[in-house]
C-alpha cells in the first residue's frame, strides 16, 4: 500500500469509478447515487465526533436539517446562488455544533446520547413553529431549483441539471473528505482519538480536552450541515417532516455498519443507508426498520468494525498470506 504508484493507481481508479456514473446511469439512479454521496458526507460528519472523538450523538439529523434550511431560506427567500449559501450553511452549523458541544462537555456517553436523541425528536416541531414560518414556510416547506450548468461547461461537456448536480455534490464531498482525512491523520486527529480512549492521560499530556471536544462537535456539525445543504438542493424541496429522529438514527446505523472511526467506512455507510432500505421497502412498509435494526445488532455482535474493518482484514490477509496479522 505504501508504494506510491499503487496509491496513484488507486486514486485514478477511484476517480474513474466516481465519475463514470455521470454517463452510465440514467436520471433516477443518478439521483439516488447523488443522495448516497450526500449520506456518506453526513455519516462522515457523525464519525468525526462519535467515531474519532467518542462523543455519542444521536441527533445529527438536526445539523443536517439546519444546513438544509439555511441554504433553502437563502435561495428561496433571498435569491442567493447555491454556491454562495454553502459557506454560510457550514458556518451556521459549525456555530450551532459548538453550542451543542458546550453542555456536552459535562455529559458522559449515555447522557449525551440521550440529549442529542431528544434534540433529534424535537427538530420537526421546532421547524414547524409559527415564529419561524415566515422563513421556513411552516409545514408546507420550501421549493428550490437545482442550479443549471454554466454555458462554458456545457459547451465542453453536455450535462443536464441532474448530472451537473452529481458533479457538484461529488466535488464538494470530495473536498470535505480530503479535509477530514487531513485532520484525522494529523496531530489534531491523534489528539481527538487520545481524548476518546483515555481522557485523563490525554489531559496529562497537555491536551485541551474541552477545546478538542467542542471543536470536534463544531467540525462534525459543519460537515453534516454541508451534506444537508447539498441534499436540499438535490431534492429541490425541504419540509420539517423530512428531518424526523429517524434521519439521525439512519446516520448512526450508517456509521456503525460502514465502520466506526473510519473515513472509508463513511462511504460504505452512505451507500448502505441509501440502497438497503429501498430494497427492503419492496417487502413491507415496516421491513426497512426491522432489517436496519437486525443488521445493526448483527454488526455490533459479529463485526464491530463494520464494512471498513472487514475490508481492512481481507486486505491484510491478502498482502501477507500465512502470517497471522497482529491486531
Amino acid at each position: 500500500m505504501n508504494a506510491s504508484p499503487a496509491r496513484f493507481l488507486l486514486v485514478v481508479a477511484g476517480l474513474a469509478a466516481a465519475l463514470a456514473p455521470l454517463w452510465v446511469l440514467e436520471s433516477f439512479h443518478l439521483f439516488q447515487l447523488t443522495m448516497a454521496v450526500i449520506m456518506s458526507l453526513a455519516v462522515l460528519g457523525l464519525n468525526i465526533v462519535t467515531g474519532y472523538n467518542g462523543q455519542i450523538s444521536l441527533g445529527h439529523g438536526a445539523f443536517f436539517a439546519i444546513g438544509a434550511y439555511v441554504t433553502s431560506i437563502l435561495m428561496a427567500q433571498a435569491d442567493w446562488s447555491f454556491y454562495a449559501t454553502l459557506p454560510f450553511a457550514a458556518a451556521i452549523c459549525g456555530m450551532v455544533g459548538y453550542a451543542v458541544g458546550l453542555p456536552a462537555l459535562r455529559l458522559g456517553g449515555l447522557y449525551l446520547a440521550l440529549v442529542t436523541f431528544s434534540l433529534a425528536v424535537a427538530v420537526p416541531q421546532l421547524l414547524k413553529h409559527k415564529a419561524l414560518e415566515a422563513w421556513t414556510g411552516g409545514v408546507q416547506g420550501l421549493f428550490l431549483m437545482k442550479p443549471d450548468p454554466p454555458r462554458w461547461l456545457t459547451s465542453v461537456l453536455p450535462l443536464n441539471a441532474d448530472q451537473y448536480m452529481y458533479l457538484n455534490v461529488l466535488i464538494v464531498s470530495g473536498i470535505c473528505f480530503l479535509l477530514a482525512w487531513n485532520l484525522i491523520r494529523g496531530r489534531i486527529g491523534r489528539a481527538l482519538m487520545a481524548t476518546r480512549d483515555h481522557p485523563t492521560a490525554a489531559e496529562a499530556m497537555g491536551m485541551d480536552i474541552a477545546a478538542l471536544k467542542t471543536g470536534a462537535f463544531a467540525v462534525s456539525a459543519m460537515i453534516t450541515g454541508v451534506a444537508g445543504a447539498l441534499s436540499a438542493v438535490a431534492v429541490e424541496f425541504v419540509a420539517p417532516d423530512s428531518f424526523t429522529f429517524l434521519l439521525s438514527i439512519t446516520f448512526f446505523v450508517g456509521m456503525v455498519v460502514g465502520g466506526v472511526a473510519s473515513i472509508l467506512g463513511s462511504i460504505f455507510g452512505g451507500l448502505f443507508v441509501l440502497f438497503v432500505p429501498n430494497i427492503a421497502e419492496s417487502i413491507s412498509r415496516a421491513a426497512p426498520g426491522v432489517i436496519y435494526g437486525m443488521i445493526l445488532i448483527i454488526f455490533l455482535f459479529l463485526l464491530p468494525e463494520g464494512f471498513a474493518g472487514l475490508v481492512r482484514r481481507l486486505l491484510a490477509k491478502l498482502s501477507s498470506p500465512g502470517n497471522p496479522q497482529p491486531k
Partner: protein
Amino acid sequence: MEAFLLQLAAGIATGGIYASVALAIVMIYQATHHVNFAQGEMATLSTFIALTMIQAGLPYWVAFAGTLVVSFVMGALVERLIMRPVQHAPILTHVGVYIGMLLIIGNMTGWVFGYTIQMFPSPFEGGKPMLGGLFSSHQLGSVVVTLAVLILVYLFFTKTSLGLAMRAAAYNPRSARLVGIRVDVMLALGWGLAAAIGSVAGMMVAPIVFLDPNMMLGILLYAFAGALLGGIDNPPGAVMGGFLVGVLENLAGAYIVGTDLKLTVALVIIIGVLVLKPSGLFGRVVFTRV
C-alpha cells in the same frame, strides 16, 4: 383559576403516565446502570398484546395480569439473548443495540398489528368526573395504579430479600457474587420487572392517547426528563419527577409556549437538569475520582 386547576389536574394525570415509564427507566438503571432507549417500544408492544387478549374475550384484569407476565418474560429474554453477549462492550455498542431494538420492536409491532390508530378500553370508564370535576375517572384511576405500582416496587426493594439481592447485584456485582447472589439472574429479573412496569404505563396511557405503534415516542422523552429531574438512581424521586414534568408540560403548553412546542419543553428540561443539577432534585451526588 378554574382553567388553571383543570390544566394542573390534567398535568398530574399525564404526569402519572410519565412517572410509571420513568420508574421503569430507573429500574433498568438501578439494575444495569444503563438507560434503555427501547423502553417505550417494549411498552407499546405489551399494550398491543393486552389489546389482543381483551379482544379475544378475556376480562380486563385477567388480560392485565397476563400482559404483566408476558412482558416480564419478554424483558428477561431480551436481557438474556441480546444484552448479555455485549455486557462488557463499550457504551457505543450498548447505544447501538438499544437503537437496534427500538427499530426492530417498533417496526415489528406495526407490521404485526397494523398502523391504524385503535381504541383501548379503560377499566375505570363510566364514572362521573371526580374531585370537583377536575379529574375524569380514568385519570384518577391511572394515578392510583401508578402510585400502587410505586409502593409495590418500593416495598419489594426495601422489605424483601430478593429486592435486597437485586440492589446488591447492581451496586457491587463482584461482592454480591462472593456472598452467593446470582448476579446474572438478578439482571434478568431487573429487565423483566422494568418491562412489566412499562407495560402498566402503556395500558394506562393507551385509553388517553389511543394505541398506535408510535404511541410511546414522546412519552419516553418526557419520562426521561422526569427520571433525570427526580434523580436517575432514585425510584420515588423519578415518580415525583414524572409528575412534575407532566404538570410543567401542561402549564407551559397552556400558558407559555403553546401546544406545538410541548416536546421542546422536555428537551429544555433534560438539558437544564443535566447542565444545572446533573444528579437531579432527589438524587445522590456522585463524585468521580480521577
